[in-house]
């Protein structure tokens, strides 16, 4: 039984195809991390879960239910929670209102949960009535995370949750992620802070050019030399890496060709 599964998903924004067949899954209780170069399609893969793009093929399954092309608000109501990479706060709403919005689909009393969030991110306490758009980059990220945590979801999707956070809070975030996970929520996250992320991950996927490149347990990926060189910034800049990038234009051309048919 898997919680979330992408099965050979292809698709993109409008005409262009970005994902050329991505498969991945998250089992109960797991932390799964996606890494890959910029522009590989990691965020796009996340969005495919929310019906935010044109899927040309493949399926998205949630708990054995086919949710391919379900509109985002319905997916959220099914218990999938998502922190996008950009535009993840309501800039004109206050911090407090942002957090409340996180619990929009909840109808019970969530004040306890609010207190928890303020405890995790103390800097937000004194900003609670300030419009979130006036926060610093890192503070916004905290709001975005906090907002997602307001729900106690079936599964949590995080797109680069640690970007822009100071080392202290980055550590904090990973701790929070682990805590949530230990409380039973499976997590799928994209991270560029790959070492730390893989450190806490059960499994990891490496995406390149909209395709699966590798998947393995977090530990094994960390130990893999090639992976370390190509994706984790270890060692010197390898010649191979540039070679890998050079295949990209062709792949794009191919993708264009496909989508035109």
């Amino acid at each position, binding site marked *: 039984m898997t919680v979330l599964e992408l099965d050979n998903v292809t698709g993109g924004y409008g005409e262009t195809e970005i994902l050329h067949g991505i498969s991945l899954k998250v089992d109960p209780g797991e932390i799964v991390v996606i890494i890959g170069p910029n522009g590989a399609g990691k965020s796009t893969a996340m969005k495919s879960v929310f019906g935010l793009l044109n899927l040309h093929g493949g399926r998205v399954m949630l708990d054995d239910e086919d949710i391919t092309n379900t509109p985002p608000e319905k997916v959220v109501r099914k218990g999938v929670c998502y922190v996008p990479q950009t535009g993840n706060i309501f800039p004109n709403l206050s911090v407090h209102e942002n957090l409340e919005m996180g619990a929009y689909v909840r109808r019970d009393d969530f004040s306890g949960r609010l207190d928890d969030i303020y405890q995790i991110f103390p800097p937000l306490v004194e900003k609670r009535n300030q419009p979130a758009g006036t926060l*610093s980059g890192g503070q916004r990220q905290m709001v975005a995370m906090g907002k997602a945590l307001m729900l106690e979801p079936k599964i949590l999707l995080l797109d680069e949750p640690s970007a822009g956070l100071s080392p202290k809070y980055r550590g904090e975030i990973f701790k929070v992620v682990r805590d949530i996970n230990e409380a039973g929520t499976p997590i799928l996250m994209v991270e560029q802070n790959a070492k730390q992320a893989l450190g806490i991950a059960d499994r990891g996927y490496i995406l390149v050019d909209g395709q699966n490149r590798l998947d393995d347990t977090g530990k094994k990926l960390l130990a893999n030399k090639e992976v370390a060189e190509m994706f984790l910034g270890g060692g010197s800049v390898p010649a191979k890496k540039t070679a890998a990038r050079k295949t990209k234009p062709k792949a794009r051309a191919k993708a264009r060709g496909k989508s035109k048919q």
Partner: protein
Amino acid sequence: MLELDNLTKSFGGLQAVDNCSLKIASGRITGLIGPNGAGKTTIFNMIAGAMMPTSGRILFQGEDITGLPTHQMFHRGIVRTFQIPHEFGKLTVLENLMVVPADQTGEKLFLGLFSPGAVKRREAEVRKLAEETLEFLTLNHLRDELAENLSGGQKKLLELGRTMMTDAKLVLLDEPGAGVNPTLLKQLGNMIRRLKDERGYTFCIVEHDMDMIASLCDPVIVLNEGKVLTEGKMEDVRRNERVLDAYLGGGEEAA
């Protein structure tokens, strides 16, 4: 090169930057670090002319430039990137870069219309520079893509690319590394160093990636609650109790 003299910025009751004085030395890469909300971006905004300081002065090469409009800062050689990428969405990646250089004769409406010779020559230069920059950023394959379609990290690269399109004296980078793949980030680091060495840029970098700061920056200035907490080499700063407490926290794995 750049000196902040008792600079203050308050938002309502909050002193985001609080009587801050610091110096950025010419020809070096200065790191500016500090907890979230310490006031780093705010300082950048003031230096680059996007925000008016509440009080205090900004001196650039000995000249008081406090409160000048952004475009004049640019012409004095101060270039900044944005923490959240600010691309020209409906322009292609190449055009995004070509917009940047100063002294484009063709940008005068009248000259753009009537003096093709000079304009064409300058256009060719600008285009060449832009193409080199794209090559450098490994974005060449996306040159004709609309910038709004780039991924988060690609936009960050483009942000950096813009600083390479001009003869900058001081480049302010606001978190160039956030969201950038570590391997690429390394390259970026090399590139920044090269720009410093080959073109004589002075950098000031805000970044939360300690590896990058450690490998590039000397000195490092630590900001906390709008004030300078300490300043020095990364190794020293790293051992500072207060820095550990406020910024690095226990979670930092030393690299």
